[in-house]
């Protein structure tokens, strides 16, 4: 079975509900705007181009190469998508890839999808765009600026996106910032190198075989100042915030505690149930036992029911 260990696709259960919902909202708004812009940039061609490119990126993620004995480098694709079709279409392409991965292959959770989309489809694309266009401007007509720009854009997209994921984990209280940030940053600084190398390899190939393709798509990448500024901004924010959070985990825990404080403030309203119903047995233990019994009965009943139906179906056949 194909499975990619993906340190960046957060599964469900790791982010608090509030964090999930907030990032869902941000991603949805970004996506809505991207859908309109992509239509303007690409016109009618957008549907087949973006759909098939998303499939190619997914397939491309299966192309690995061994870095050292056990590990292998993989492709995320945000940078190459941005370079090929421009930032707004790339947001949609990456959204498609990450969503299908979550829905069909459980690569990332469904509630956490909003956050994963923010990290990979929004931050990944914006940072790629910012880095790539900036570096290209150094030497617009020389091939080296494309390759160097591609490499750094790919690396940055992975690195900064991982910082975003680490902070999301920290705010949710799942992983303390002073561990999550260095861990994610460290791992992805390495993975980013692999991404950079594959991106450069792909760009080299495309420049050699179809330079018109790169030129054609870049002409339509009127991403504009907005994306560039956002890319710069988010990269700065995350790059600055992460070491800060790392050094002062209390800061983020303060946030988590505020939430806890709020919940604790609600608690007295719900103290309707006494601490125990049976003498000596706490309510919680009792409830757990009851739930266990009820649960077992449910599963047992269903199993019996299904077996019975199957047997009766076989008998009538």
């Amino acid at each position, binding site marked *: 079975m194909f499975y990619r260990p993906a340190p960046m696709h957060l599964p469900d259960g790791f982010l608090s509900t509030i964090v999930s919902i907030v990032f869902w909202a941000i991603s949805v708004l970004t996506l809505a705007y991207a*859908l309109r812009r992509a239509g303007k940039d690409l016109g009618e061609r957008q*549907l*087949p181009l973006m759909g*098939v490119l998303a499939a190619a990126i997914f397939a491309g993620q299966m192309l690995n190469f061994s870095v050292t004995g056990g590990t292998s480098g993989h492709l995320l694709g945000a940078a190459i998508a941005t370079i*090929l079709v421009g930032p707004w279409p790339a947001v949609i392409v990456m959204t498609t890839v990450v969503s299908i991965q979550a829905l069909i*292959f459980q690569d990332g959770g469904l*509630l956490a999808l909003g956050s994963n989309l923010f990290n990979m489809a929004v931050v990944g694309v914006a940072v790629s765009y910012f880095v790539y266009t900036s570096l290209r401007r150094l030497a617009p007509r020389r091939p080296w600026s494309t390759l160097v720009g591609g490499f750094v854009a790919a690396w940055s997209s992975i690195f900064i996106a991982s910082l975003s994921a680490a902070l999301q984990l920290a705010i949710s209280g*799942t992983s303390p910032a002073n561990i999550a940030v260095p861990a994610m940053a460290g791992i992805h600084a390495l993975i980013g190198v692999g991404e950079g190398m594959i991106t450069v390899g792909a760009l080299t190939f495309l420049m050699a075989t179809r330079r018109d393709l790169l030129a054609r798509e870049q002409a339509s990448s009127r991403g504009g100042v907005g994306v560039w500024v956002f890319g710069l901004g988010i990269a700065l924010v995350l790059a600055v915030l992460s070491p800060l959070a790392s050094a002062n985990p209390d800061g983020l825990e303060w946030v988590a505690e505020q939430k806890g404080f709020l919940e604790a403030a609600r608690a007295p309203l719900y103290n309707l149930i006494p601490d125990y119903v049976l003498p000596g047995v706490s309510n919680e233990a009792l409830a757990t036992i009851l739930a266990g019994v009820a649960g077992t009965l*449910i*599963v047992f009943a269903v199993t019996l029911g299904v077996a019975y139906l199957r047997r009766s179906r076989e008998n009538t056949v």
Partner: protein
Amino acid sequence: MHVHFLDPYRPLPSPVHALDSRVKFVLAVAFILTVSLTPFGAWPVYLLLLSIMLSVEILSGLGVGYVLRRASLALPFVLAAFPLLFTTPGTVILKLPLGTWTLALTAEGALRFANVAVKSWLSVQAAIVLASSTPFPDLLLAMRAVRIPRLLVAMFGLMWRYLFVLVDEALRLMRARAARSGLVRQPRHTAGRLRPGGSLAWRARVAGGMAGSLFLRAVDRSDRIYVAMLSRGYDGEVRSFTLPPVSSGARVTLVTGLTVLGLLWLSGTLVWG
């Protein structure tokens, strides 16, 4: 070669399979949301949610073993929550000396870790059952029903359709590379100087070239698809059939499911929140 193993859908004659995909989709998301909203320590609620999940897995004919096996593949990430064991303040139950540091495993930490693991485990099972019991085109329908923009749904459809085509192409590229990557046994006098497999940079270039070739084929194919779409009258607007009405049986299932989940959430929040 056909890459069928990528498609998790398993057609089976079960009531879960037959249930309207829109209802399944909403219930799966509601289940995951309920899991997420269940407070830490609400073990009875988790138990009941687990029993519901197991029942659905049995009912669907997919089998608990299949679902749990797939679920275990999604769980290595749980390691990311490991630090919780040692950093959550509380009553220490175990001390692990590690060089100059001492890792203190706390009961609270273990509890938090267990919570994260259980939430993750329950949620992924719901996603697996949804994907394995629903044909993808029906999932697209469900997406349309929850008001996801038609253009995006169409794009999902295209990606999925060409996923198999392009993964086939990627596999062919990898097989061609493997066929040309014969390992030459080094004669002793060159040992250490010949590097089998080539340098890292070279290997990355090859992989990158394969990726580039894949993208190129994808873009070319998208042009041909566009021509085929134009030839059949495509005008840029995404058109689709009106959604069929939801049967009353499906409606009942939806309401029942949401009610049960709501009650579980409520009891969890009231007692442990």
